[in-house]
């Protein structure tokens, strides 16, 4: 990590552009290297992903905690004819998602073996990383759409090329589903820019310009919001648009599932904050009951469906539907605590569910099955593995002291005031999560191992190190969430202030004119 003095001197370095372009360069390099020298290919992929991760961690250290606006902003004209610019920036809302992306990819590249065609696999992973990074960093609607959509291609090939038996079906479903949503968003984005031209004075796709200057008539804003919402809801995924997710997750290779759960789904929830709430506050508040209801249905539905799964990976996939419901609940509750909780939950869910998929992948590597019924008594033969699984699972359930608790708790407490009855129902989802995950744990790990399971290999050093990183993050965030929350909060407060200013809405814990520099409510 670089010292603070150096940070200053490096301020002219285009940090964010590098976060996007380093993986692209890595992907090109990997594609150009010869397949006959796999060690070079792997090295190139690793180097570029580690470099990206390093830059993201450095950015985290150099991030100004009390600054609520966009930092490290990089802005260059790109397509002048349409008022499109290469505009990147990071604030508290995107900060940890960017870091999570930067950290997750090298871990996956080191830790998961694709078994065949490693070169292509690594190239696609790096393209995926660039796409995800770009989506989180874009402050231009066109640019965001570009990255949001480009992500589909590498993910499609990863699922289709390295997934399990029904991989082509799952990959195609994933691609078409998401693209269907994006079709509406593209028209919405263009309409937003065209309609905002009157207020802004010129045609631009710049998010900040449009959000700060343009005011949409209520009916127009609602249509525009809905066009965005369809695409984002598919991505989250929000009930009833979630049906692609279990297939994609189950059929994807381990790396694909980890990335999908870890960061890709967050594009949707992040989009709701960054584009839904920020651009169309009036419409978002108007649509609040709808989205709260869908979120709560998702929480309960995901939990019930997860309980009934016979496939361990599918179970984790449905648990994602439930967890993401919490994030959407927090987003549309529009209070400072709930939004902070949402953002924290995005990151924490990425860590814990990512780790969970990693562990399920390890089980599959050993047993070549994901069927819960065929697994039994693993705790007896692989106690360390079982312990690791236990910690990660508890974090996913949201046990206090682990990271999953922080976000979920903040969401529930923050939503209680503005969305009381939804929150009450959602809270039962926490209990259901304990039910299906513990029950699954019991079936898989407890009991006497039969013949097939008695040879279950204990966690290896490499796997242990990999899972160890996740567990370290889980414990650190769970026990000491303050550094995270105090970076998220200023930006969230700024967003809420924007909503209040635009709509006259008053968030209960955030009355107009309140001192929003404090970091009082986080972490306790």
């Amino acid at each position, binding site marked *: 990590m670089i010292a603070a003095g150096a940070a200053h001197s490096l301020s002219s370095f285009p940090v964010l552009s590098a976060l996007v372009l380093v993986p692209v360069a890595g992907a090109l390099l990997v594609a150009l290297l010869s397949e006959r020298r796999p060690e070079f290919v792997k090295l190139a992929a690793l180097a570029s992903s580690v470099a990206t991760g390093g830059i993201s961690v450095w950015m985290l250290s150099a991030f100004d905690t009390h600054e609520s606006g966009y930092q490290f902003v990089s802005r260059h004209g790109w397509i002048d004819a349409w008022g499109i610019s290469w505009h990147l920036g990071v604030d508290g809302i995107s900060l940890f998602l960017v870091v999570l992306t930067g950290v997750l990819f090298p871990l996956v590249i080191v830790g998961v073996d694709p078994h065949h065609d490693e070169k292509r696999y690594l190239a696609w992973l790096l393209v995926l990383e660039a796409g995800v990074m770009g989506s989180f960093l874009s402050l231009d609607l066109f640019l965001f759409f570009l990255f949001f959509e480009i992500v589909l291609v590498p993910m499609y090939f990863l699922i289709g090329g390295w997934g399990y038996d029904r991989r082509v079906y799952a990959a*195609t479903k994933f691609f078409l589903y998401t693209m269907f949503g994006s079709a509406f968003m593209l028209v919405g984005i263009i309409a937003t820019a065209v309609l905002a031209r009157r207020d802004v004075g010129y045609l631009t796709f710049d998010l900040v310009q449009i959000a700060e200057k343009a005011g949409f008539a209520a009916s127009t804003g609602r249509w525009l919001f809905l066009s965005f919402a369809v695409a984002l809801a598919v991505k989250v995924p929000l009930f009833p648009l979630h049906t692609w997710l279990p297939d994609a997750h189950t059929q994807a290779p381990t790396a694909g599932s980890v990335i999908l759960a870890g960061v890709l789904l967050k594009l949707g929830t992040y989009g709701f904050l960054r584009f839904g709430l920020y651009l169309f506050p009036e419409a978002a508040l108007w649509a609040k009951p709808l989205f709260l209801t869908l979120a709560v249905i998702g929480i309960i539905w995901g939990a019930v469906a997860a309980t009934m799964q016979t496939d361990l990976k599918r179970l984790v996939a449905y648990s994602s539907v439930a967890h993401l419901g919490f994030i959407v609940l927090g987003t549309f509750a529009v209070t400072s605590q709930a939004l902070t909780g949402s953002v924290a939950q995005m990151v924490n869910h990425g860590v814990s569910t990512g780790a969970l998929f990693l562990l399920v992948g390890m089980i599959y590597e050993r047993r070549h099955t994901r069927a819960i019924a065929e697994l039994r008594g693993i705790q007896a033969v692989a106690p360390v593995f079982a312990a690791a699984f236990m910690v990660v699972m508890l974090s996913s359930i949201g046990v206090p002291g682990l990271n999953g608790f922080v976000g979920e708790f903040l969401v529930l407490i923050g939503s209680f005031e503005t969305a009381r009855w939804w929150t009450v129902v959602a809270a039962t989802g926490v209990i259901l999560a304990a039910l299906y995950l513990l029950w699954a744990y019991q079936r898989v790990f407890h009991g006497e191992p039969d013949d097939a399971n008695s040879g279950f290999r204990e966690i290896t050093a490499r796997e242990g190190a990999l899972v160890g990183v996740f567990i370290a993050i889980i414990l650190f965030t769970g026990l000491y969430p303050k550094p995270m929350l105090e970076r998220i909060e200023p930006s969230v407060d700024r967003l809420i202030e924007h909503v209040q200013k635009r709509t006259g809405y008053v968030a209960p814990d955030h009355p107009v004119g309140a001192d929003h520099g404090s970091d009082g409510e986080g972490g306790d």
Partner: protein
Amino acid sequence: MGPLAFTPPAVEFTDVLPLLIWLGTLCAVLLLGALVPAVLRGRYALVTFASAVAVAVQQAMKWSDLGSEPTGTALSDAVAVDRFAVLATMVIAVALGLVAPVLHDHLARRDSDGPEPWAMFLTAAMGAQIMVSANDLLVLFLGLETLSLSLYVLAASNRRNARSQEAGLKYFILGGFSSAFFLYGIALVYGATGSTNLTTVATRLQGSVSLAGDDALLLLGIGLLLVGLGFKVSAVPFHAWTPDVYQGAPSPVTAFMASAGKVAAFAALLRLLTTALERRADDWRPVVWALALLTVFVGSVMAVVQTDVKRMLAFSSVSHAGFVLVGVEAASHGAPGLSSSMTYLLIYTVLVIGSFSVVTVVAGDSDDATSLSDFRGLARRRPALALGFTVLLLAQAGMPATSGFIAKFGVINSAVEAHSYVLAVAAMVGAVIAAFLYLRIMVSMWLEDADDGDAPRVPRATGAVIAVAVAFTLFVGVFPGWLLDAGNLVDLFRPVAAPQG
């Protein structure tokens, strides 16, 4: 001017230079090919390519000249001289230049080295060029027929293949019908306005205040003209010939048909609708609206259920025509639909020629192996070719960072500017359906294993064309600024002040 007095029109030769270049090349190819075959044997492609480059260069110079001088007409108002025509001519030249190397390899495989196919291609290019600059319905008809007749012959030019014969005959018969419709449309418009000249028609329509019921002649004429041109751009429901002809015709011919043929027809359609019939936009707009919607959806849906790649690409070209029609509809509102349609056509020209070039390579010597299963495992056998085709297919699907996205974005942008939201959303949803088709081809190439191990041979010239197409696709996808700026400079010779709308 009295009815019997005939003043020979002043001929501005520079304004018809593309025609003269291609005509000269055509004569040279035919004469030399017949008299001293040894001189040009094996070099027809080079000559054709050179003529395309010459036209492109000449048109590029014309483009910059037109920046300073006003647009107008030449040859007694018969052809328009404007940047719209220049851009369309350049696209045709690009199409000819890109198809020539592919055709060369294609013919070399079957040891046919006569000048005839080249002559037909040059004739087709001339016809297309006449169409894009015609400022008179009859001149337009001449261009249309020149283009169509050459394409009929070219479609049937693979004499050893029954499907090619069928394609030629089918195209000829249906094309004949559509020409008849078109001609009758011309007659009716002439009857209603007293002129076939687009400028005069526009002026007459501007001057006349029509009373209810007395413009049936004109409306019927407009309808028939739309049928004729709708057939040429393969708009649904006039698309039925497209899959059979595209599949049966030799692949390089299909590539030319789908690029230059479409550009010519669309340019003519745009010019006709937005200049001569501008005043009647309220009458033809709903028709174009419906055509666009139908074309996008039927094209996409039908493409998905095909099992032959050439048929898939044929239906996908129908769907792309629907997208251009969205731009045409937007142009009727005075939105930047004109430039976005033309940009779309330019980008699509490169995409479709690149795609059909890949098909030519995979189809093998017989030009028959075009079913989806023939593409199975291409990524293992020819990774670079498969990657190139993937880029072209993703671009056709409208993926960002490729030129296809820029094209779609432009058209949707102009539709939104024109407040045609329904059409914009519907077109995008149609694009999603079409994406499934491109995914199917990609699945076949990347995710399925080959039946047999032999990799298709990639001839050098065809490989170069594919490489150029892919490079262009990616370059425009990332740096589209110059193309959009050029597109925005496109203007049409308009005798009448544009109405506010």
